[in-house]
């Protein structure tokens, strides 16, 4: 893939800004939605079950 092809793929005749800004919003929505439940679950595990898992190891 030469530089001109890559430039065309990203720039998209001047409309790339619109397309890629939507892509960035999608990434933000996905990361936010996947990270928030994970973070909350990890918090519960570390606060409520950390002593239990330590006992389990021993």
């Amino acid at each position: 893939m030469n530089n001109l092809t890559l430039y065309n793929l990203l720039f998209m005749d001047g409309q790339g800004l619109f397309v890629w800004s939507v892509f960035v919003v999608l990434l933000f929505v996905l990361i936010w939605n996947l990270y928030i439940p994970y973070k909350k679950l990890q918090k519960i595990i570390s606060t409520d079950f950390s002593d239990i898992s330590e006992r389990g190891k021993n």
Partner: protein
Amino acid sequence: MGSSPSIFRFISTIFPWLFFFSILFLMGSLFWGLFLAPTDYKQGDAYRIIFIHVPSAILGQSGYIFMAVFGFICLVWRVKVAGMIVRSIAPVGASFTLLALVSGSIWGKPTWGTWWVWDARLTSTLILFFLYIAIISLFSVIESKQKADRAGSILALVGVAIIPIIKKSVDWWQTLHQSSTFSLSSSPSMTADMYLPLLSCVLAFYLIFLVIVLSRMKLEIVQRERSTNWVKDFYS
């Protein structure tokens, strides 16, 4: 419908596989749509926003229908898990509806020359987003989980009337928004090399939606049953 422990174990088992598969499928579908699909002769490359906008709009509406169905089950048969599903879908559906609104707005600028118009399709979708927000607010202000589940389910059931309005808005009113991309009654108005990546993106969005809802379900179950022995045993 299964009990909380069996659903929790089922989610824990399938989640890693489903997560990686859905991410790969989404990346492949978006690559197909954003790079390999041909350029539209009229709109140029700006039309590629369709590969994100249409799936997110479909998910926003489907999510609400799923909420109404599980809300009905929660209200009629008092199934606790159904209430958890409604609660898990609400923020995800709201996110996809917001994504549909934002992506539509960004797409509107190069094609319509404006970010927003008070068009029937756009306004009814905005109302759908507000309905999601109302349901999320109900869940956060009512302390009793059971009461909140029932209140949220009632609003999900009442609000589902907005879905046919959104669907038919482009037929009932003169709108700037184009007619539906997907229709069961007519053949697609796009060529296969545009339609197939779009279909692939819709399927990928459904999968990623399922993944997010399952992760929220898992959290919901742990939050409600953290004092039970089976949860303690699972994390010990």
